[in-house]
């Protein structure tokens, strides 16, 4: 019951905050909404017994990524008049509709019918292994995801180098 | 020596290419050397091709001088070359024209000579390769390899609208050939029963290809025919030709008219018709009709031209209409005549362009209204021009007559392949309408002769019009000799094409059983349509 209530609270939080992200004119506000959204999402993750991921969500997203965003926003120091009004062109509208329609189709045709049988809950089934805990996820990570893990290290290097190269004053 | 013997054909194919490679490594800007090397290469090619002619056995079936080497076994094609009589004739024509072409622009082309010579030599290799190839991919490679050097020739050394003409030429011919490429793939994928290795080899295809469905044959034939018809060019696919000819430099026009157009008709003889006999039989009336339209239409077009080269270009349309008519008539006379007419057209129209090129070199105009009275200032050149024109209009005693006569008489006597209209065999109608081309040919050609050679001297003649130089004589004399030689003693040429022509007719017109060759008499109404001409009753 508490789970249900919490879920709907988080649900509303995620949706509202998410909507704020794409509705606020000021990017700082949008960023703040995004942070809020991330927090609510972390809550949802907790409901899904994804403890480690929930922590990561807060730490990496809300902590690191969003700081970066805000930092950049401040760096760019956009003045109010530059935050001009949105112009919704026909094609933007079509695009938004298409996105919504695609997701709608997926929801209606794929997701809705996905769980037609009895629902298994691994968090319950696999309780002994510790579903979603740091230990369990760590085991999965280091035993079976060596390659993606290593490639991710590569990716982060690339991102660092790339970001430095791109943001550097002049070449 | 053994190597030379067994690789003779390949040597002929690649000898010009070797010349081109050598030229590519010569320093730029030294004009004489490039041309010299090119001339030597082309002469060498001709010299190498002479043993082909000598060693050829006219009666032999199949292909001579065959050579087969692995090329890309993993992709299924091989380097397989060989020639039959038809290919031999056209090959000789090509190698024969090679040195003439290079000499023709000896002085006129002064810019980027190396590239010019390379283009000509590569073109020669491509043409010879097209004739000699016996593997469909190899054929196609050579077929398309012709395009680029020709494109450069037109586009770089042509006159005012050269770029338009060059691009049009390239695109036009390319449209047709890409569909042919697909047809080749289709053939390949149906070349053997399931599970057996498939092949692009022409000989193997003819021998062992499982029969294709009627519909497939039809489409494949049309794909091949389109490629070839554009190259010929068959009306109404001809409009690239006047532009290309008009804008090309003399050498380009000579090659274009002399050998390249023949690749189209050659394609019909070699590929389109034998590979798809049933479809070919179904479509020959249409092709013949287009040929006839081409004859009349081309001739009429000639009459409307004010541009010397454009006029000759349209006359090519008419002449090749004859060839198409002859090929589709499928009688020994007509087919042999058509093959001979290919050679004739190469020589005559090539010579026309050659001399018009000399005109142009001197006067820098192709406008007929600028000409007049050339005979007075350049009598020898005019005489040569006149002889060539006469050959072009098929005066007996010149080569043109034999071809046109055989085609027309062969078409006139052709019955079953062409069918009939309300009791009148179409062959007769086509032949009669085609024969009007003989009259119209005289009309426009002699009109052109009068406008250029005769009458009072006009601007062009006044402007430093000089007579033939020694070099130019060297280029025209072989052509004149050829014109008269074929006109007076055509039999060796006809012998060469006899067997391929027979085989073609056998394959297309008489697929059921071998019927006796030779004297055929057909009285109208003597047999139901489809019945071939009966043996010698008279």
């Amino acid at each position, binding site marked *: 019951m508490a789970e249900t209530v919490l879920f709907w609270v988080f649900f509303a939080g995620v949706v509202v905050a998410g909507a704020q992200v794409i509705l606020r004119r000021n990017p700082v506000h949008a960023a703040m909404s995004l942070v809020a959204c991330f927090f609510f999402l972390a809550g949802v993750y907790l409901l899904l017994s994804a403890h480690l991921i929930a922590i990561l969500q807060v730490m990496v997203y809300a902590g690191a990524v969003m700081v970066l965003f805000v930092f950049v926003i401040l760096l760019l120091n956009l003045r109010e008049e530059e935050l001009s009004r949105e112009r919704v062109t026909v094609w933007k509208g079509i695009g938004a509709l298409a996105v919504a329609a695609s997701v709608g189709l997926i929801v209606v045709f794929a997701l809705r019918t996905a769980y037609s049988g009895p629902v298994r809950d691994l968090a319950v089934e696999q309780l002994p292994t510790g579903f979603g805990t740091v230990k369990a996820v760590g085991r999965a990570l280091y035993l079976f995801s060596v390659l993606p893990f290593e490639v991710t290290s590569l990716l982060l290097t690339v991102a660092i*180098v790339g*970001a430095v190269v791109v943001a550097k004053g002049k*070449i | 020596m053994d190597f030379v013997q067994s690789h003779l054909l390949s040597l002929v194919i690649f000898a010009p290419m070797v010349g081109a490679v050598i030229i590519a490594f010569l320093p730029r800007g030294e004009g004489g050397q490039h041309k010299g090397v090119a001339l030597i290469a082309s002469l060498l090619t001709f010299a190498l091709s002479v043993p082909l002619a000598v060693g050829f056995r006219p009666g032999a079936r199949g292909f001579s001088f065959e050579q087969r080497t692995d090329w890309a076994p993993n992709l299924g094609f091989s380097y397989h070359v060989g020639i039959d009589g038809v290919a031999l004739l056209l090959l000789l024509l090509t190698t024969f024209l090679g040195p003439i072409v290079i000499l023709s622009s000896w002085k006129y082309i002064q810019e980027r000579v190396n590239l010019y010579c390379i283009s000509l030599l590569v073109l020669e290799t491509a043409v010879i390769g097209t004739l000699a190839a016996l593997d469909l991919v190899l054929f196609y490679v050579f077929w398309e390899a012709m395009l680029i050097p020709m494109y450069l020739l037109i586009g770089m050394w042509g006159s005012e609208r050269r770029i338009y003409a060059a691009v049009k030429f390239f695109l036009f011919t390319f449209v047709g050939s890409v569909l042919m490429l697909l047809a080749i793939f289709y053939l390949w994928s149906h070349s053997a029963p399931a599970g057996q290795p498939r092949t692009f080899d022409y000989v193997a295809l003819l021998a062992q290809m499982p029969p294709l469905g009627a519909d497939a044959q039809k489409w494949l034939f049309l794909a091949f025919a389109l490629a070839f018809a554009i190259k010929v060019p068959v009306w109404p696919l001809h409009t690239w030709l006047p532009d290309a000819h008009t804008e090309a430099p003399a050498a380009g026009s000579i090659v274009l008219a002399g050998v390249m157009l023949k690749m189209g008709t050659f394609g019909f003889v070699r590929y389109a018709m034998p590979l798809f006999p049933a479809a070919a039989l179904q479509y020959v009336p249409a092709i013949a009709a287009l040929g006839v339209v081409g004859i009349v239409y081309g001739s009429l077009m000639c009459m409307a031209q004010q541009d010397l080269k454009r006029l000759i270009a349209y006359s090519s349309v008419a002449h090749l209409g004859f060839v198409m008519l002859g090929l589709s008539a499928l009688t020994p006379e007509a087919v042999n005549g058509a093959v001979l007419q290919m050679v004739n057209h190469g020589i005559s129209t090539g010579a026309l362009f050659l001399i018009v090129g000399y005109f142009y070199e001197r006067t820098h105009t192709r406008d007929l209204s600028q000409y007049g009275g050339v005979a007075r200032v350049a009598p020898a050149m005019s005489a040569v021009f006149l002889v060539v024109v006469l050959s072009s209009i098929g005066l007996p005693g010149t080569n043109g007559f034999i071809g046109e006569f055989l085609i027309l008489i062969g078409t006139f006597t052709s019955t079953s392949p062409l069918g009939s209209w309300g009791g009148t065999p179409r062959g007769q109608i086509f032949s009669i309408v085609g024969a009007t081309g003989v009259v119209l040919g005289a009309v426009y050609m002699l009109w052109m002769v009068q406008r250029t050679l005769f009458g009072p001297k006009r601007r062009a003649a006044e402007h430093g019009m000089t007579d033939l130089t020694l070099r130019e004589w060297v280029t025209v004399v072989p052509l004149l000799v050829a014109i008269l030689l074929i006109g007076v003693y055509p039999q060796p040429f006809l012998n060469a094409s006899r067997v391929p022509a027979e085989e073609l007719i056998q394959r297309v017109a008489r697929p059921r059983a071998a019927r006796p060759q030779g004297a055929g008499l057909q009285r109208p109404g003597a047999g139901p349509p489809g019945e071939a001409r009966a043996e010698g009753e008279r």
Partner: protein
Amino acid sequence: MNFNPSDLEGVLPALILAAGALVLLTSEVFLSNSRAFASGSGPSSAKPAPPKPETLGRAVAQPVPDRRYQAWLAAVFAGLAFWAAVAQIGDPAAPIFSGAAVTDGFARVVAAVVCASLALSCLVSFGYLEALRATRGEYYALALFSASGMCLLGQATDLIVIFISLEVMSLAVYCLSAYLRRGQRPAEAAFKYFVLGSFASAIFLYGAALAYGATGSTRLSDVANAVRLAGSFGSPPGTATLLFAAAALLAAGFAFKVAAVPFHMWVPDVYDGAPAPVTGFMAAAVKVAAFATLVRILVGGFGDPSAALGPHGWQKLVVWLSALTMLVGNLLAIPQRSVKRMLAYSSIAHAGYLLVAVAAMAGAPPRADALEGLLFYLAAYGATVIGAFGVVALIERKEALAGGGDDLSSWAGLSERHPGLAAAMTLFMVSLAGIPPTAGFMAKVTVFRAAIAADLVPLAVLGVLTSVAGLYYYLRVVVYVYMVPQSKPEPVAGGHLIAAGIALAGCAALVLWMGIQPDTFARLAQSATTTFSR
């Protein structure tokens, strides 16, 4: 432990490339320090050939450390990786990293093509960057990183590995696009590329999530199993629709990367805005990796015809994509005045031709000749397009300095100034148009032959007909190069032509070699298909 050290052998090319990237990065650190002092007292004598100011259009007097070895170093690493890929080419296929990746002939050929492209691109970049005084170790490091990601993409059989490798590749390429700081174009290109690329990866990832939902795994082999079982009695009822949705989104993600219409919109702007050597690298290598992955996903993951997907599964869809791509690419290339932009649209068109091969592959087992054709085409296209952009890079230098793009008029009369360059460009254009005796022709042969054998006749017909339109705009370049007299007085920026010359000669040689003696490459492609691990 599921980690087997010998698995590293399987990703050797990627490892070598990554190592090379790190070496280059590190070298930059030392180099900058040591040179900073050395160059304090004026122009360094260790700089034997300073870029000529007049060719640069801008005199820069400040001393710059000599970084010219970097291109060669990068090329050496690329060559090593190439060698590593080729050396393994005949080895049997084996899953590595507990099935997250595979080492098979296909992957090795892809890696080989990527590495070859990289090596050639590095050489092309050399002169370009030198002329713009923009050589940095990071550039080559990013190129090597992205190539490393591409090699991994070629062998990844796990959706997450695919995603991460994709990001490695993409992020590096985004940065390369934005590498130059001249005018507004590179950054804009990078931004567009980034936004759309991320958008597409998100879509791809959503598809991966749905596939995960349907199968409980991100391994392609598990996806394949699920596809095989989908709709059958034993499988959960919702699986099939989830899989379809996943297929749609995964296909969309890679349709974006391969630039299939309507996911192509980014291509012209990005290709146009990025520095020409980068564009060449993108056109060649990114395309290879993207197609390799598309094949892995479609053939490896969704290759089995399930009842719901019909006997040919996704074939029909790919046919439509292909048709649309060929049409749009060729149509839009025709009115272009900038060669670079034209080549961008042409790359869309070529994606269409490559999709023909993908479409022809459909079926179980996949048609080997189509797969061969695809690889051959990719290699041929890569060699050609790097060469083409290499020439563009030489022509573009001047405009790139000013932050502009090239125009056909800068090509006029090229054959008189630089006959070799003109000949090379003509060769590349001819090859792109698919005319013998060039690689492009043989590529067309392999692909369209496969299409005909797979009974895709209308598609093949459309393909060759659009290639006629293609011929038109390729020829226009040749027209300008050979037939239009030079109108602008200034010559192409000279200097630093050795590396570019080697690269262009290499490309030209490859183009001719593949065109005249395609068997060598056909054999490689064949070995790739015989050990293609599904």
